[in-house]
């Protein structure tokens, strides 16, 4: 029925993924280290001990290097909704634009105004004003995360809006429903706590390197105490909200949940797979291209409990969601596709009736559209189930890498805290080396989380309402290919400079305080 330019779609997705992942390389550190810096500076102001000022300034320098490139990648991300996803922006701009604007007004200005004080105000403003500014930078950056995650959550669970056939777009019906959606709150808390975890791993890792080299021991140990307490709070927050997140996904995005678990066929009392391998199914008659998981290490009934707080609950698998499961009241996808096609046709009929000033036909079309709007996006699919299932291996493995590394960080923070308190951290070479090696793995875990969230929700750019393929801007694929490679070159070149500068600054170490 509809023609799609899949080259354009794939490159547009690629470009967005590229930008988002580059941006996310820098954001979590900003979200967490700003709080760590604020805590350290608070200790300095409270105690007046210049050692803490030195510590604060050292981490501030590293933060500054990270922040600049985070800003650079962020601006592209914000405008890409317009440049590359203009149909999306048209269809839902009435709701999606608001959080982005609020992010600017409420968060970005706070962050950028006070960051100038934080970096350059040591000798220009009072101690208290400076400290307040540092806290405001941390609060501002976390507020910006709040609003962009409200926007993201809304794509995963579109609430608080109504489709207006006159403007042919979704319009906001209730701001609070959008802002306070449980999906949004959970996503925000899960994301920021995971960012605190990453920041703690970063600070501990660099401190551990100092201890291994026998340099800046005081700075390293003090930083480790603050960071490991902060990290423990962060990781427990991440685990708690992750649990809530899983429940949200099970309810709102069952296909993503099935993909995360590699659950081909649903049943009651499903075990949670701790580990396993995704393979193609043996049975060639299988019409569902869903993958199967073998060599599972499982925790009995845990998945049912996680999803529904009931160890015997039914969790639908990929096949149930595609073929339907009458017993469980799950409609087959073919039914949703048919319903979606009726909705799309009804919208066209409504427009036509309006043009001809045929009020009764318009009303009939409108009523039909409202009845079927819930599955509007399914109308773009033909009966080809393959397109309705996200990549199972990518989602399945990413989820396990994220969770596994999270568990490791719990242990690491606890051990670091224990040995630092006992004053023996510098002798625990194993844990010191592990802490250094952990830095890239914190980034990996964080990236994997977003892969689960974003790959797992495919093919939807707005759950059930707009498939990714109808969201793209109508431009030549070659234009997007060109900008994709431009961004690859620019971002990678800047990343190389960033890492080089960062490594150099770590090697240089903290500056001795002179005069101020």
């Amino acid at each position, binding site marked *: 029925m*509809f023609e799609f330019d899949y080259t354009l779609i794939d490159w547009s997705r690629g470009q967005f993924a590229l930008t988002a992942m580059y941006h996310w390389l820098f954001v979590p550190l900003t979200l967490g280290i700003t709080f760590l810096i604020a805590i350290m500076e608070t200790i300095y102001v409270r105690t007046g001990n210049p050692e803490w000022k030195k510590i604060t300034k050292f981490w*501030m320098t590293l933060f*500054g290097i990270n922040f600049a490139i985070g800003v650079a990648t962020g601006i592209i991300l914000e405008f890409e909704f317009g440049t590359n996803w203009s149909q999306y922006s048209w269809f839902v701009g009435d*709701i999606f634009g608001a959080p982005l604007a609020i992010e600017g*007004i409420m968060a970005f200005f706070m962050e950028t105004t006070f960051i100038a004080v934080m970096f*350059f105000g040591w000798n220009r403003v009072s101690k208290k004003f400076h400290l307040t500014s540092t806290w405001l930078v941390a609060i501002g950056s976390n507020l910006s995360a709040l609003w962009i995650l409200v926007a993201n959550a809304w794509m995963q669970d579109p609430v608080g809006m109504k489709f207006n056939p006159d403007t042919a777009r979704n*319009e906001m*019906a209730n*701001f609070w429903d959008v802002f306070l959606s449980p999906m949004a709150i959970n996503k925000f808390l899960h994301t920021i706590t995971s960012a605190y975890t990453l920041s703690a791993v970063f600070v501990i890792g660099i401190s551990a390197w100092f201890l291994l080299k026998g340099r800046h021991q005081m700075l390293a140990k003090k930083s480790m105490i603050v960071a490991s307490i902060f990290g423990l709070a962060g990781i427990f927050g991440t685990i708690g909200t992750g649990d809530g997140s899983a429940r949200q996904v099970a309810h709102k995005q069952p296909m993503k949940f099935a993909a995360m678990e590699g659950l081909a066929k649903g049943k009651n009392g499903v075990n949670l797979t701790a580990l396993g391998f995704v393979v193609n199914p043996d049975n060639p008659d299988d019409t569902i291209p869903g993958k199967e998981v073998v060599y599972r290490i499982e925790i009995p009934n845990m998945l049912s409990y996680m999803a529904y707080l009931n160890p015997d609950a039914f969790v639908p698998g990929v096949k149930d969601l595609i073929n339907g499961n009458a017993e469980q009241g799950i409609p087959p996808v073919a039914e949703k596709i048919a319903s979606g096609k009726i909705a799309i046709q009804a919208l066209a009929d409504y427009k036509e009736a309006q043009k001809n000033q045929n009020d009764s036909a318009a009303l009939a079309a409108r009523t039909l559209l409202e009845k079927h709007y819930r599955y509007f996006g399914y109308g773009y699919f033909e009966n080809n189930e393959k397109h309705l299932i996200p990549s199972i291996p990518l989602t399945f493995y990413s989820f396990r890498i994220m969770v596994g590394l999270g568990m490791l960080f719990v242990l690491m923070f606890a051990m670091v805290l224990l040995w630092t308190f006992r004053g023996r951290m510098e002798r625990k070479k194993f844990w010191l080396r592990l802490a250094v090696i952990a830095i890239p793995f914190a980034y990996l875990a964080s990236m994997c989380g977003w892969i689960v969230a974003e790959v797992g929700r495919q093919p939807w750019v707005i759950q059930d309402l707009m498939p990714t393929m109808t969201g793209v801007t109508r431009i030549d694929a070659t234009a997007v290919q060109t900008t994709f490679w431009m961004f690859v070159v620019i971002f990678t070149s800047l990343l190389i400079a960033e890492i080089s500068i960062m490594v150099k600054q770590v090697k240089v170490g903290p500056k001795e305080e002179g005069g101020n």
Partner: protein
Amino acid sequence: MFANLSHYALQQYWWVIVSVLGALLVFLMFVQGGQTLIYTLARNDSDRRMLINALGRKWELTFTTLVTFGGAFFASFPLFYSTSFGGAYWVWIAILISFVIQAVAYEYRSKPANVYGRKTFETFLFLNGLLGTILIGTAVGTFFNGANFVVEFGHQGIATSYWAHPAHGLEAVLNLHNVALGLAVFFLARILGALFIHKQVESAEVASRIRKSLIRNTIPFLVFFLYFVIHLMFKDGYAYDPETGLVSMESYKYLHNILQMPLNTALLLAGVLLVLYGLFLGIFKGKETAFTFTGLGTVLTVLALFLLAGFNNTCYYPSAHDLQSSLNIRNSSSSHTTLTAMSWVSLLVPFVLAYIWYVWWSMSRKKITKEEMDTDSHVY
């Protein structure tokens, strides 16, 4: 409070807010203008360093204003956002890239092991100053001269827009009137940059070059700005009928707007006079307050130009390709609910401006000196 206002009143309110943000952005592009002067005004490393650090403490403000301008435009007039950014692809990509390279340039410029060397990052600053100002100015020129897009219902069953020119926005530079605005913005940014540096940097050598720089940029600025305004008064504009929404060409549309919106015209005149007064103070008296006057004048002038583009039943984003696709504040805005919710948020704006002003005042009371550059812990 806001919920009781008519949709049109909210649309007007939001056009004013977007215009204020646009006006502040043009003023704050003194940072960009200043970036193109780092070699002209400073001839040694020490001066250049002070100059870059003076600008470097403000660059994020400009950057954030740009991002917020985009965000506010998205929230209040989403159809513009999706039509222009998606359609005029190459112009916006070029603008964005010029800001991407700026964002890292200050922080990485003087850091050891920055891989590409100091000159590269200074070149980034220069390119951002050159392209950012000219292209943003040119893009705003299309608010008066039109762009090549079509808005239609039916593609893939929904409403969308597409661009009807293969250059995807870059064709705007073929229109002299657009480019005149771009160059006017560029030279104005340089004037403001020079005035800011004069106010903020303590160096006799730099100060001695300010006057010459001001004169050299004022002349082309006046030429391009006057050409832009005079041509605007004589050109046809895109008017719409508020009842039917039909768009038609109207001779002397902007001249009519000038005559029919006396308050706005007063604003425009006040803005232009303040800019000129600031220039007079800067060139003939060497006064540091020149920055304040020219800056304030810039805000008022740009604000008035935006209002001229969008009020009085004028299409602020006309389509030269398909007249009826033209966007105006009525047909491109968000819903009443969204504009109401956003209007509550807009009450934060004065508060935000107040703390920005307070921080600016606290941080910039003292000039940047060579001594500070040598001793401060965080220096670009």
